[in-house]
């Protein structure tokens, strides 16, 4: 059962990492235009960055 000593912190760390990533995307306005982002991948012109100052 000693393996738990590593596994539990690892699983919690991964969870925290995911939460951190979620907070980062939220702060950078990546959920402001889900439909537009879905549509933009179909365009020919190269445009993979979110708007420079999110509103």
């Amino acid at each position: 059962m000693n393996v738990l000593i590593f596994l539990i912190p690892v699983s919690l760390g991964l969870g925290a990492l995911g939460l951190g990533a979620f907070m980062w995307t939220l702060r950078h306005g990546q959920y402001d235009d889900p439909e537009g982002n879905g549509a933009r991948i179909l365009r020919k012109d190269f445009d993979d960055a979110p708007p420079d100052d999110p509103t």
Partner: protein
Amino acid sequence: MSLSEAHTGMACPGCIAAPASLSRAGRAAGSATHEVQLALPSVHCAGCISAVERGLLALPGISEARVNLTLKRVRIKHDGQQTVESLTAALRGLGYEALPLDMVALSGTANDAAGRDLLMRLGVAGFAMMNIMLLSVAVWSGAADATRDVFHLISGAIALPTVAFSGQPFFRNAWTALRSGRLAMDVPISLAILLATGLSLWETLHSGEHAYFDAAVMLTFFLLAGRYLDHRTRAVARSAAQELAALEVPRAIRLGADGEEIVDVSSLHLGDTVLLKPGGRVPVDGLILSGESEIDRSLLTGESLPVAVGPKAMLSAGEVNLTGPLLVEVTAAGKDTSLARMADLVAIAEEARSRYTSLADRAARAYAPAVHVFALAAFVAWMWQTGGDVRVAINIAAAVLIITCPCALGLAVPAVVTAASGRLFRRGVLIKSGTALERLAKVDTVVFDKTGTLTVGAPDLVDPMRHGAAALGVASALAAGSGHPLAKALATGGRSFAKDLPDPTVSDIREVPGYGIEGQLGETPVKLGRLAWVAPEFLAKEFFALSETATWLRIGDEEPLPFTFSDALRPGAETLVRQLMEQGVDVHLLSGDTAAAVTDTAERTGILTWQADVDPMQKAAFVRSLKAEGRHVLMVGDGLNDTAALTEADVSISPASALDAARVASDIVLMGKDLMAVSETLRIARKSTRRIQENFALAALYNVVAIPLAFMGLVTPLLAALAMSLSSITVTLNALRLR
């Protein structure tokens, strides 16, 4: 324009805090950027994004154009070369209808702080739920003794801060409700979350077998999801509907002792003299001192044709001055204008309507006390059964509270409303009120306004070629420069009818306000306008006196030729009326316009019951009498004369072109031109109400099964988690069936 345009430098709070940097930016004046946001109701695909962004960037002075497909908006940064008008015109050229948004109102809601806050709490609850579930699965599958206790402790360490952070919206609402002596849905929710967490903590510290940390966090997560959906639906619709720039003019030209000055309408006083330029909206109620012009009253009274006015005539705020400059003495300004008085009426009627209780409220009102009674009963019953074992009794009472807690109920309505309004939003329909769809589903009577609602509100040339191409060519050449709606219709109608129309050179074109336009065709004088002015000697003859709605063309001394106009129907108007009648809905037409014009529209759309020359109060009274008969009335209108009726009706719809007051008074705003959206909205409203009822039934069914189990003490944390997620997923999936 001034409303919908703002310096980004000024809007940035950082700049206000640092005046030094502002002045530095001011010195580099040439490159100052202006930001404009426009609503684009018709963008819907990747192609649209490309077309709009490329088309805008090709214009001079535009540094950035970014389409937001979710909100159906485009944000444009430019250096001041472009105006809102030039941008909307450019977009119309690309094939997209654009409406300016009010930047002042936008800045308040742009960041949607409340939405992000909810999303953050939802995210935290979601991640915590996953981690706790990971540990809980181990416990459920047989971890025992020390391992189980450690797992429970870790779960508790995650759950406590999560509940403290993510549960706040519920705790806050519950507290406000309790303080004012009410029992809202958030009270049992908070109680369940707190009791489950506290109990689990106590059990964990005493090496108990069951801990409900997963249930507490899961409850928070699902309920927050419902809350967030609810917020998002409302925020999107509300911002889009309210931020459409106001139509009312905020400024006027005052003639003072030292000449003309531009002032705020709010600073005008009784007796001031105001200059009204052609094309402008009348800012005050007033008396014409001098000048001749024509006035478009369609938004106020529903009259589709302009009215000629001269000295001594009265003007009302909100009318549009069409052809000539006018000097007006202010008889009422600001709050005393007829426009503002009408808005007050709206506010009063609004209050009356907010008393409508939604399905969700009614469910919650019955449910919240029941939940408490059940939990208390469980506690008392088990105290008696076990002979005073508090630990067992509280455990079971908490299980009852968790099981009965309205997870499904909290999602049942928001999930359906979100699915429905998302679908309608894509069709260009904005739902402003949360209960609008429910009220709409009951509608059995529809009252339409005519001008601007069933019709486009702009005249359309009838039979352009009746006098031959040459006459039409002369007429459209004369009309080309005028701002009068009939002249505009002549110019555009003639051109679009025949591309190769002769284009004779008419020189010395001069507009005589209130009468018409004259010019020289080579040596021959030509006139276009009222018969009384074009050819007074023909007025007496019966044939010529007949059609007053016509505009007359006279070349030299020839007999004058009439061009007649009709108000074009909005696309989809006929089909909509036919469909409504097929569904057994009563359709009425009420208009402030003349009987002839109303009959014409009624005949073309197939509406059987109509009334002409109706004033605003009569409209409202008509709607009230229908309601008194027990009917559920939908009012569709756009003018100021409709606002009282719009608020009086059970539910109301106005097109985006409507006057501000009418849009505010409506529950639903149509962004597109097509009236068929009304029929689609009705269909979706009926379907979504059915889905909401189904969801309530599902939630009730789940409770019928789960409550007895919880009461008997058979519910384990595993069973609670399963039941909760199953019911939540069922109602969400049922909501998504809405098509």
